[in-house]
């Protein structure tokens, strides 16, 4: 079925240099709608740089990024959002001290009136927040409650729902399960699964956790030292392959033998 689909985002030979340091050295990546594409790699592999380039935080040095076949170029986060790339960072970009609704619409409030002094339409915004959160599986009883009172998983869901509502076709999730408890992690994975089932959204999942990747990923790309060292569909890769590639291609089996001895 996936073979008939066209990739939503194609990344071809992407290079990013910071001065003389080559952070990304010709990375290529295709992500399809309705798929979870796991981006794995050890610390310093270039995962963060890649998503920052995609999110418009850093401009690329060279290479081509195309969305639905059209080449795009952006240098600010706003431009990336406008072409449909929604990034959910680890810190979620939430203000814990204000309400769920105020966070959901932060920077994009529905308002009537001139400029920033327009009056926020709280009722409408509350309704949208509740329905959008419910779409990916969380029922919030009170959209006026401060985000600080929500669990980590609920916050993650809020950030994802917000990105989707504001037109993200490509959802980049940066380590969404790290820093969460076991139960919360499963909640987040379920949320991602629901987004996947919506069918029209391509998800790039950055993670350290191979078990989580195996639970939901359809496709894998492994990065090491700024280069792709392996890629494949979930069904093609075995557990040991994944472990090995995640460790940057080192023979982790040897290490395990040593540790076991």
């Amino acid at each position, binding site marked *: 079925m996936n073979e008939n689909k066209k990739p939503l985002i194609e990344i071809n030979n992407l290079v990013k240099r910071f001065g003389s340091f080559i952070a990304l050295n010709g990375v290529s990546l295709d992500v399809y709608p309705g798929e979870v594409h796991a981006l794995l790699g050890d610390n310093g592999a270039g995962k963060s740089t890649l998503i920052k380039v995609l999110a418009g935080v850093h401009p690329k040095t060279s290479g081509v990024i195309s969305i639905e076949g059209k080449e795009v170029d952006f240098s600010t986060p706003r431009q990336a959002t406008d072409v449909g790339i929604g990034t959910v960072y680890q810190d979620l970009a939430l203000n814990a*001290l204000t309400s769920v609704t105020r966070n959901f619409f932060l920077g994009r*409030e529905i308002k009537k009136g001139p400029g*920033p002094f327009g009056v926020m339409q709280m009722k409408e915004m509350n309704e949208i927040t509740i329905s959008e959160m419910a779409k990916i599986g969380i029922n919030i*009883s009170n959209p006026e409650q*401060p985000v600080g009172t929500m669990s980590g998983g609920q916050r993650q869901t809020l950030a994802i729902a917000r990105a989707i509502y504001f037109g993200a076709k490509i959802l980049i999730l940066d380590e969404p399960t790290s820093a969460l408890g076991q139960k919360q992690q499963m909640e987040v994975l379920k949320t991602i699964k629901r987004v996947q089932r919506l069918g029209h959204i391509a998800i790039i999942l950055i993670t350290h956790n191979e078990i989580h990747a195996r639970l939901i990923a359809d496709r894998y790309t492994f990065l090491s030292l700024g280069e792709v060292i392996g890629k494949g569909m979930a069904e093609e890769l075995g557990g040991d392959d994944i472990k090995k590639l995640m460790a940057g291609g080192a023979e982790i089996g040897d290490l395990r033998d040593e540790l076991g001895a």
Partner: protein
Amino acid sequence: MNSESQSQRQESDRLEKKNWFIAIFARPEIGPLGVMILLFGLLGYFSIPEGEFSLNPFAGEGFNALGIRNNFRVIAQLGIVALGAGLLIIAGEFDLSVGSMIGFAGGCMAMILKWGFAIVIPYISFQGGFHFEGLKIFEITDVSPLTAILITLCMTLSFGWFQGWVIVKSGIASFIVTLGGLFFLRGLTEVCYRAFNRAPDQTAGSTTVTDLPDIKNIINVPGHGEMERDAAKALPNEDLLEILSNVPAQTVAKLTEQLSYINEKVAANKTAIQAKKMVETLEKSLAGAKESGNESMVEILTKKIEAGVEVPAVAAKAVTDLDIAKAYIDTIYTARPVANFFGGDILEPVFDWLYFTADWNVNMFGNQFAKGMYSCLMIWLILALVCYFVLSRTQAGNWIYSTGGNLNAAKANGVPTNKVKISLFMFTAFCATMFAACQVFEVNTADTAKGNLKELEAIAAAVIGGVVLTGGFGSILGIILGTIIFGIAKEAFFYIPGIDGSFYRVFLGAVLVSAALTNENIRKRIMGSI
């Protein structure tokens, strides 16, 4: 599946249970409200004269008409700058230059009103030796209050903008940049006063402007043109009578009625005071007689006191035409509404009603006690209403909260955080200018020490009102309550007999720290870490 859905229900139940608790105790106003009620009680109780028992706090000096007028002047003036400071703290920054800005703005306004305004471009001249000369490209000499305020606003808002710009561009702490502003502006103000205050108009080297006309009381007297109210009342008698001859009979009748009411009231109070004095004299003699053991004298005096003292009633002064003319001049509306807006009085009809009808706004001589509230109260309330609306209802409000609550989150969501901060630095400058305008037009003087320490008082009021110093949390209602607490505390300790008035600082210090602790606790509760 079953166990899963059960555990989810428990999670939401837990949130539900916390809700009522949060609703009450997670409001930033809860602490200040309690302290304020306590203070009102204290001020009311302690201002009641010794020996009289009353549970009515309005019986004492603290809340008589004049007390209310004066207390709310202190509160409103501080309130104006506390609003700016509070909003800025909610957005995560400080402004320590507010106090100096008040002095600077007041100085600007007073000097512009006195000498006018000119733009001079300095250049170096070599003719007759190397020296600087100025090229005057623009000059106005007779400046209206509105123009003076607008020119001053141009300067203060630019300075506010500049401070904000330096802070957001450089990333230097606002504490240090605005501390620089504090010294810079105070020094600049002093230098300007000395530079412009030249004899013979003003003592050279003086750092004050004291001889401004009473602008808010300039009125258009029929047949005489514009003049100050006091000057109009001091006109020759024939002029006054001529003015009166053109006043409609209805107005004259009403003024006559009011004046005779006042005269009767004054006479009655004089009678009462004389009677009281008489009783006091009798009581003194009685005490003397008791001491010396003069039994018969004690008996006579006791009888006399018991019988009650009769003093001849003081006759009420007759109302003359001159009185009516002067009273009429008092009712002429100002010819300088802008100056009156900032420095005049409001609610005069209410205070008149309180005197003529409610018989409450009366001083010990029988005259009207307070003529109204200071106008700065109205300006404070207007600003507070606007701030409340912006902070709680508009997009800008959400931006202010998020800029202080989580700067990176706000940036990531496209909030123009730099613009938010710079605008708020300009707003604190605006508030300082409003404060200065209120002072200058009220007292018609300005000096370089004006507004000293107001920046810290404003921050303290905001913090007492529940604003968290690290930003992101607070409310306008809280800031208002905090300001009232600060102002009332400042006044209340003055009325406690036998206690040094400076104890108010001790009290405020303690309240400030406990408020900060409470705020932090509430913030943590909301963040979910308690």
